[in-house]
């Protein structure tokens, strides 16, 4: 396949979940960056009417993975994602554009029932054929959100000032997409 570096892929591209990552990073105890990820998610890039391209994503919020099971249980509780009532995190792009290898995606992100417009920036790697004859592309995207805008308000004051958890959270996607 030949693709100009200014063109977005056409057709339908579906996520290879094993070789993709949906993660987050947030400042913890003021000093360090804490990272986690979601195991169960879906994403697709597809051509839509008018020649545009749409990126959509769906994450099972209770598939969150951190290194402590009690922390994972707290993160799925009403203090955080409240996965019993809001089982999915959703994203639907309103615009996808590229400039060379740079990728910009804007769209509506829904977490815990709250929808906010976000803008993610990153990179696109054009199609490459895998050993089985499939075409694959790579998307890297990152955005920052204020978790309290989505109702994830938990925090705890620290003895010497400051709080345990920052409000700003980076959402980081590394997507390997296979042409359908």
């Amino acid at each position, binding site marked *: 396949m030949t693709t100009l570096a200014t063109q977005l892929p056409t057709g339908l591209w579906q996520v290879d979940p094993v070789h993709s990552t949906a993660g987050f990073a947030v400042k913890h105890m003021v000093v360090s960056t804490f990272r986690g990820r979601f195991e169960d998610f879906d994403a697709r890039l597809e051509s839509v009417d008018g020649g545009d391209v749409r990126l959509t994503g769906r994450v099972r919020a209770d598939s969150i993975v951190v290194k402590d*099971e*009690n922390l994972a*249980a707290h993160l799925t*509780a*009403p*203090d955080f994602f*409240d996965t*019993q009532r809001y089982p999915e995190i959703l994203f639907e792009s309103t615009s996808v554009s590229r400039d060379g290898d740079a990728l910009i995606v804007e769209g509506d992100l829904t977490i815990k029932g709250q929808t906010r417009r976000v803008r993610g920036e990153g990179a696109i790697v054009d199609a490459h054929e895998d050993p089985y004859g499939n075409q694959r592309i790579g998307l890297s995207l990152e955005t920052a959100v204020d978790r309290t805008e989505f109702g994830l308000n938990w925090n*705890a004051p620290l003895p010497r000032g400051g709080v345990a958890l920052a409000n700003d959270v980076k959402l980081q996607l590394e997507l390997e997409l296979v042409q359908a």
Partner: protein
Amino acid sequence: MRVLGLSGSLRRASHNSKLLRAAGDTLPPGASLEIYDGLRFIPPYDEDQEHLAPDTVLALREAIRESDAVLFATPEYNASIPGHLKNALDWMSRPLKISPLRGKPVAVVGASTSLFGAVWAQAELRKVLGAIGARVVDAELPVPDADEAFDGDALAEPELEAALGDIAGRLVAEAAEHIATAA
């Protein structure tokens, strides 16, 4: 709808047990409050005993599991929650993933003979319940001067009585939504 009442005070003439009974009288039709009186029998939490939890712990787990919501009334001991109540919650929190309080609608009220109405203990208790994974109603009801706060089985101050009814109503509404979501 079944609301379980847990009083943080064990004494027979407890203001907080009385506050629970007052809350029970404000519940909307179709909801009833049952006050649990077994907290005094729960031994100190011991991780070694987790898989051999005593009957008193199993009974509380079952009572919470069978309820649609839990209403706590807590006094304030040394600016915090009474030890036996925290101890019972520590038992209930283990293992956290299958805690009967996980996702359970809960609310906290409190009475004390001081001017502050156990407001710190209520905040502490909401924090603990949130950490366990309960669905905590974001409201508090400090009932100060508890020796003089009641008129019969109800709160003497109409505003406090109305606020108690409001919290009980919000708890029942949360429980109804919880039942609808789970269905």
